[in-house]
Structures are given as C-alpha cells and as structure tokens.
C-alpha cells in the first residue's frame, strides 16, 4: 500500500514551518519501504503518526493510502486499516495496564486471529520478559512496557508498521533485540515501516532517512 503525502501542514505547526521542512512538501512512501523520521522534540513526529492513523484531522493538504484520500475514509475503512494494514507502537504505548501482559496479547489476538498466543510468548522470551507473562502491565517499568507494546503491535497483519520513538527507554542491547524481532516480522510480511526517533544513531536498517 503506497502512502502519498501532498503538502501536509498540521495547523498547530503552520507558523513555524520552513521551506526545506518535511511539512508542506510532497512525499511518497512506496510499499515495503523502511523510513527513519528524525527530529527534535516538538517538530511533529507524534503528529505525523496520528495523521497516518486518522487520530488527527487538523491539517491542510492531502494524504492518500492505496490511492484513496484518507479524508474520505469512513468508520469501516479506518477499522480495517487499523486491524489489517497499519500496526502502531504509540509513544505513550497504549497498553491496558490493568490487564496482564498475556491478556494484552490475547485481546489483540482475539481481534486479529492471525497468530497463536505461543508466538507472543516466544517473542516475550526473546526480549527477556518471559517471567512477566502473568504480571499486570501497571507494575512493569517503562522499558518493559515498551517491549510489550512492540510485541503486541506485531500480533496482527500489516503493510506498514508505525513506530513512534519505540526504543526511547531501552538500553542499546534491548533496543537491538527489539529491532531484530521487528525486522523478522516486517520481512515475513514484506511490509514497510516508519520509525520516528530523537536519536539519529538508531541502528535500524532503513531505505530512507527524513529530517522533520
């Protein structure tokens, strides 16, 4: 699924945009492309994530997905998009903290029916959290929560994976492990991803780096 951005300007950022900025120009993200969006705080990384997932509509310009303007999307279109085409790791993670790690995964799988719960358990083991399977997410540290949120995002079919600063609370080793499982799943699905980061040294292999 190709993503086209035509002169997108978020209204709150309209006054601070420069000519060479990402905002206000035309961009095309080809299917399967791996993109790094790099910017300092307040430049609109999370806004970009929210625009692609339909959570914000306060912008000018046009966004097309699969050739169709997202402004014409209805409730069913967004639901299918989020369930089958775009997986997201939000910056605030969006976990159900009152549920256990296993329950967070079960709930996702109850929606997508695409994998077995054992797959999630294996991945949790890979990121070193197998002992946290039955713990409520509220008792996990931020780094642990980030790893759980990354695994949960992979428990669905997708054509694009949007990662909003997913490694911000991880040490280099854990970040490397997470990059590994993400790459494995993205390769498997022949999908693309957009990784937003504060740190341009993130070691994720990408096709393109864009500065916001």
């Amino acid at each position, binding site marked *: 699924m190709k993503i086209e951005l035509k002169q997108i300007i978020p209204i709150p950022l309209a006054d601070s945009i420069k000519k060479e900025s990402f905002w206000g120009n035309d961009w095309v993200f080809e299917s399967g492309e791996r993109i790094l969006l790099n910017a300092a705080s307040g430049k609109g990384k999370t806004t970009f994530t929210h625009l692609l*997932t*339909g*959570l914000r*509509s306060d912008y000018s310009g046009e966004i097309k997905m699969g050739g169709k303007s997202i402004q014409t999307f209805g*409730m*069913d279109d*967004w*639901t*299918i*998009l*989020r*369930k*089958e085409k775009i997986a*997201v790791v*939000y910056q605030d993670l*969006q976990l*159900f903290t*009152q*549920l256990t790690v296993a*329950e967070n995964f*079960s*709930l*996702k799988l*109850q*929606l*997508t029916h695409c994998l077995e719960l054992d797959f999630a358990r294996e991945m949790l083991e890979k990121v070193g959290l197998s002992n946290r399977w039955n713990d409520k997410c509220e008792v996990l540290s931020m780094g642990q929560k980030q790893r759980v949120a990354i695994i949960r995002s992979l428990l*669905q079919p997708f054509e694009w994976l949007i990662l909003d600063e997913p490694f911000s609370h991880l040490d280099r080793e854990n970040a490397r492990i997470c990059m590994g499982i993400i790459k494995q799943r993205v390769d498997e699905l022949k999908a693309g991803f957009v990784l937003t980061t504060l740190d341009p040294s993130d070691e994720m292999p990408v096709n393109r780096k864009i500065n916001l």
Partner: protein
Amino acid sequence: MLRKLLFRTQDFKQLFIAIVGAFIGLTFLITSFHYLVRVNEFGEDTEILGRNILIAQRKVTSSSSLGITKTDFEKEELSEMRQETFIDDIQPIVSNNFSVWLETNDKYVPPFRTDAFIQAVNRSFLDVHSKRWKWHKKSRFVPIIMPREFIVMLNTFMSASDIPQVSDELAMSIFFKIRISNGKQEEWYDAKIIGFTNQISALLVPEEFMSYANEKFAAGVPGKITQVMIASKEGKFGELEQYMDDHGMESKRDQMAISRLKSIVGTLLGVITGVSVIALLMSSLVLLQYLQLLISNNYYEIRTLLRQGFHPNNLIKSFWFYFIKLFAIIASIGFIAFILLKILVDHLLIAGGIALKSSLSVEAILALIISLILFAIASYWTARNGVMKWFNV
C-alpha cells in the same frame, strides 16, 4: 477478555441501586396497568366507571312556583350548553303529552291495569343495550324499559304480602298492552319489558314511538323539556357541577354523589398510570445514567481498543447486550413480583367483595414489552453516543 476489560470498573453499589429502582418501577408499572384495565372493566360492568351521566332539572323555587321563572329548557338553551367544553353530550328527556294506560295481557298473570307516565331519551344515554329497542310506524309492538326501583318496590310489597316475588326474567316474559289516547282517538299496542334501568324513574319507550305519539295525540301542543340528560367530559365533572349551580339546576343527590365518585376514580386511575410511567422513566434513566458512567469511566479502554482496530459496533454491542440482558432479568423478576402481588391483591379484593377478572391483562404484558423495546432503543443510543465519542481521537 473484552468484557473483562470493559466491565471491570463497575461500581456494584450504584448498579444495585439502579437495578432496585428499575425493578420497583417495572413492577409498579405492570401492576398499575393490570389493575387499571381490570378496574375499568369491572367499573364499566357495574356503572362505576362508565360515561359520567346525570339527569338535571331546574330547581323549583318560590318564583318558579308563582310562574315568574320557568322550569323547562328551550332547545336553543340546550344547543348553547352543548358548546360548553365540559359537556360531552346533552339530550332532552321527552315526556308523554297524552294519556297512557298499561295493562297485562297474559293468561298466566292476573289482570292488572294502571295509568302510566312514559318518557323517551336518546339511545346513547341508555344503560340498557338491546337489539329489540326500536320502533317504526308499522310496528304493533312497543318495547319498554322499566325502572329497577319499581321492581324492587314491587317485590318488597309482594314479600310483605306473602305473594311470590317477580324475577327479572319473569317480568320480561309477561305480555302487556299499552293504550294511548287524547280523549278523541286511541291506539293499542302490544308491549313487553326488555330491560331495567337504574337511571330514570319512569317507563321508557323508544324515541320514535314517543315522537309519533306526541305528534298524533298531543293535538299540536309542544312537549316541554323539564329534564335533560348530561354526559360530562372525562375529569371535568367539577366544572359541570359549578355550571349547574350557577344556572339554578339540580340533580338527584345520589346521582351527584355517583358522578363525583366517578370523577374521583377516573382521576385517580389517571394519576396512578402517570406515576407508574414516571417511576419507570426515572428508574430507566438511572440505569441509562449508569451506562453513561460506565462508558465514561472506560474512556481510555474504549479509545485504545478503537485505535487497535476494534470496530465501534463490537464495543457498542458489548455494552448494549449487557444492559439488555440486565433489563430483561429485572423485567423477569419484576413480572414474578407482579404475579405474587396480584395473588395477594386479588385475594384482598375478593375478601372485600370486588371480584376482578383473574387472568393477566394483555395491556400489562404489552406495557412490559414496550418498556423493554424503549429501553433497548434508549440504551443502544446511549452506548453508541458514548463509544463513538472516542472514535478517531
């Protein structure tokens, strides 16, 4: 898992209060609807709750005795009264303006002959409904309605005189002859009693017969209207009473008392129904408010589930089905409570001499079903509004 997530923040104390409220409201509604219908049926049969009809005449005063004021009604006056907002209908009671004799014409009954006084009223005001209540010029038979108080008085006399009493059926099987005359000419008709009235203390004949006889035998003298039958509108008897007072009219004391009673009972039944509907509305609102509260307590979960790709309809259905099931359970328990209450109330009423029909009224069951449907619609919209607020935010 979805249900565990969405319903984990329940305040069971508040839910319990909402359930108890809805249970009381529903039970109250079914019970009052049931008894409203049954009491109405019972009232119609026993003339407690039928049309509120009374017979009115002018008060006889010293001035009317001296002929200064009149005691009859003009036709124009009746037309004006008909326009009053509290009067449903008004019809004159027409009396005979000729001589009438009534005698038995039955070989099994001792000969008996008397002068008689007959009256006619509009069929819609009669408390006797019979297909035989008709007359036309070629007919030689005149149906008669007898005042109930007459046969009661007759039987009291017969009992005191050691003569066998007369039942309604026996009285209705006796053949009579009725003779009408103006001194110059006379006519004879066969007659039979077809029913008994509690409203008028005179022999009643069909209006058509009275018109014919008055025209032919009253020698052109127009009959005076000294009494009228008035049907007041539902709940407006008080205004009629005031009007009668202001216009020097009166009615029999027991008729006034019955009319007042009818007015009170009718108003009370209306109030009970109104209170029941309000009680159910209030308790349903408590339940709906609880649903709203549950949704707003779960705003983070709903918003996140929608962001994850759950369809809003799935979440709406989760809330909706839960509350439909809850209401259905409350309705079932309410229905059982109503049945138990009905057994108790019916028992008390029978002990008090009021035998209402014991079967369940269709209206009460319909009220329950309609409540369920209305609650289903209201809870769906509440759930939909609550969930959709968090879509795409």
